[in-house]
C-alpha cells in the first residue's frame, strides 16, 4: 500500500472491527467448555462472525507487518522477499480459514 493515509485508515477500520470481534470470539469460542464450543460452532451467525474475525485479523496483521518491513528492512531485495513472504503467509492462512469455515457450514 503506497498511500500512507490509506494504510492508516485501513489499519484503524480493521482495529475498530476487531474491538468487537475479539471479545465475541473469546466469549463464544474460548470461554465455554469444549462441548459448548462445538455447539456454538453450529450457528451460522457465529460462523460468519468467526470468518469476519479471520479476514479482519489477517488483513490487519498483513498491513502491519508490511509497515514494519518498510521501517526495518532497507535493502530492496530483502524488503521485496520479506513482503512476498508476508503476502503468501497471509493468503495461505486466509484460504485455509475459508476452507475450514466452508467445511463447517457444509456440515
Amino acid at each position, binding site marked *: 500500500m503506497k498511500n500512507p493515509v490509506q494504510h492508516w485508515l485501513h489499519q484503524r477500520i480493521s482495529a475498530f472491527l476487531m474491538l468487537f470481534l475479539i471479545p465475541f470470539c473469546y466469549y463464544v469460542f474460548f470461554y465455554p467448555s469444549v462441548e459448548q*464450543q462445538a455447539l456454538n460452532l453450529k450457528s451460522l451467525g457465529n460462523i460468519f462472525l468467526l470468518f469476519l474475525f479471520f479476514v479482519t485479523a489477517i488483513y490487519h496483521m498483513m498491513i502491519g*507487518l508490511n509497515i*514494519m518491513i518498510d521501517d526495518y528492512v532497507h535493502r530492496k531485495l530483502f524488503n521485496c522477499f520479506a513482503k512476498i513472504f508476508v503476502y503468501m503467509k497471509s493468503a495461505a492462512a486466509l484460504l485455509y480459514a475459508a476452507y475450514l469455515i466452508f467445511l463447517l457450514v457444509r456440515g
Partner: protein
Amino acid sequence: MRPLSPHLQIYKPELTSILSILHRITGIGFMFGIYVVLWWLHIHVMKAEDFSFFKKIFSSFFGQFFLFGVVFSVSYHFCNGIRYLFWALGFGFNLKPVYCSGYMVILFSIILSVYIWINV
C-alpha cells in the same frame, strides 16, 4: 553499509517509546495467536486429532510460557489499540493524558491477561 548516528545508546527510554515498541512486538505475538485460533478451528472441523494432543502441547512448561505470551500479547495489543483509536479521533494527545493512559494500558492488559488465563 553506511554508519548510523547513535540513538538507542543515547536516549533514555520513556514510557511512550517503550509502549510504542511493545505494541509492535505484541503485534507479532498476536500473529501467533491467529495461528493458534486457526489450529483450534482445524481440530474442531477436521476431528483428525482430539483435544488431548492440543492440551499436551500447551500443558508443558514451554507450551504454557508460549500461550501466556500470546494471551498477554493479545491483551496488551488490544488495550493499547483502544488508546491509539482515541488518538485517531484526536483525544488524549497532551502529555498528562498520554502518560495516564499509558499506565492504564499496562494495568488493564495485566488484569485482562490474568482474567483470560484463569478462565480458559
